[in-house]
């Protein structure tokens, strides 16, 4: 783990990169990294995020300057900007069931070639997917999702990069911290080693590449 400024961390991300961003309706999203993505005008991003949040919040910020060219998520209903851009074919959007979304990220991070889920069988979701029977029941084969960068927000981070999360801000963050080539983390509090007890660490330090310093 290397300490880094938000500016330098985001400078690592090239235009056109695939980024995973933690958070659920903007809760548990690394806002400082998103502000910096906006400020540095990164463009053509492929965004893997549960939702499009709301305008001005979380990943919602990326839609105002049309910085996203592709999105994989589960729901964009509360961001009119994202909807407009989807309807106008400015961004291509893959909407997938939330349980499938998180399992695909987990598969990407855990070295699995995919998972079989009953979700989506017999619906539009099964289009173009392999259907596999196990014990006579049909499942969809869902493949791994990975990103170039994961932007993760933790509650506590210690000096070796161990992370813990608070309340409903955990959501996709720990999964994404395993599923990207480079993991960049912001934390509400950076604390000495030992403040997060071993049993309370959710993301072990070795998974973290960059920890954004708190000013």
């Amino acid at each position, binding site marked *: 783990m290397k300490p880094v400024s938000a500016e330098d961390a985001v400078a690592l991300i090239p235009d056109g990169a695939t980024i995973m961003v933690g958070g659920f309706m903007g809760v548990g999203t690394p806002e400082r990294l998103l502000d910096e993505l906006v400020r540095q005008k990164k463009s053509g991003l492929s965004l893997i995020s549960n939702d499009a949040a709301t305008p001005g919040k979380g990943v919602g910020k990326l839609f105002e300057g049309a910085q996203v060219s592709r999105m994989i998520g589960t*729901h964009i209903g509360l961001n009119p900007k994202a909807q407009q851009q989807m309807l106008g074919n400015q961004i291509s959007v893959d909407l997938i069931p*939330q*349980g*499938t979304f998180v399992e695909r990220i987990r598969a990407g991070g855990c070295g699995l070639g995919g998972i079989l889920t009953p979700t989506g069988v017999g*619906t539009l979701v099964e289009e173009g997917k392999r259907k596999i029977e196990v014990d006579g029941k049909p499942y969809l084969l869902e493949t791994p999702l990975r990103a170039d960068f994961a932007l993760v927000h933790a509650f506590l981070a210690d000096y070796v990069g161990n992370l813990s999360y608070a309340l409903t801000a955990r959501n996709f963050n720990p999964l994404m911290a395993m599923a990207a080539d480079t993991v960049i983390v912001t934390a509400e509090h950076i604390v000495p080693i030992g403040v997060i007890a071993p049993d309370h660490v959710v993301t072990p330090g070795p998974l973290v590449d960059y920890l954004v310093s708190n000013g």
Partner: protein
Amino acid sequence: MDAQAIIARRVAQELRPGNLVNLGIGIPTLVANYVPKEMSVFFQSENGLIGTGPIPEQGMSHPLLTDAGGRPISALPGAATFDSAMSFGLIRGGHVDVTVLGGLQVDADGHLANWMIPGKMVPGMGGAMDLVTGAKRVIIAMQHAAKGKSKIVAKCNLPLTSSRSVDLVVTDMAVIAFPGGKATLLETAPGVGVAEVLAVTEAELTVPDNVPQMKL
């Protein structure tokens, strides 16, 4: 009692002590208001919480404690938080005893459509498909008809949410279940007759000899 209160109150009667329950947005959210105080039911919020409590008092909300719509909530004593893989492991794995969701259409064999209207804006299915596929019991809470058209249809023409049939539909006019895969009228709303329900229901309903009224 208005239509929403009838539905929410009647659905609340389906919950049992100790149940793990996931409520969708809209009418389903109201169900929590009608669970008897002395009954312990665990509400899951799929963004990562069991033990969802009411909206916090002014100044007591925390920005990192919200429901799946991003609105501030509270957590009850005994609450547990977890990541999204766990949350949907609970849902898809059959650990959620009851989910209550809204519906656009339910058809005669219990199939549900509730996530997409072709040609309109498609917001995304969120967690709905996993909930309908995985929860032990799926209850649909919705108006019986919208804009004069029955939402209990012969066959869904909107895209399905799951190949799994729902267990119970509670509307402002009726309670309908699907024993043997056939839509069956179990109860009518107070002051509503069987004939009245049949008149506004597109799906063919099996009508037992005795159809009581909801006790609310």
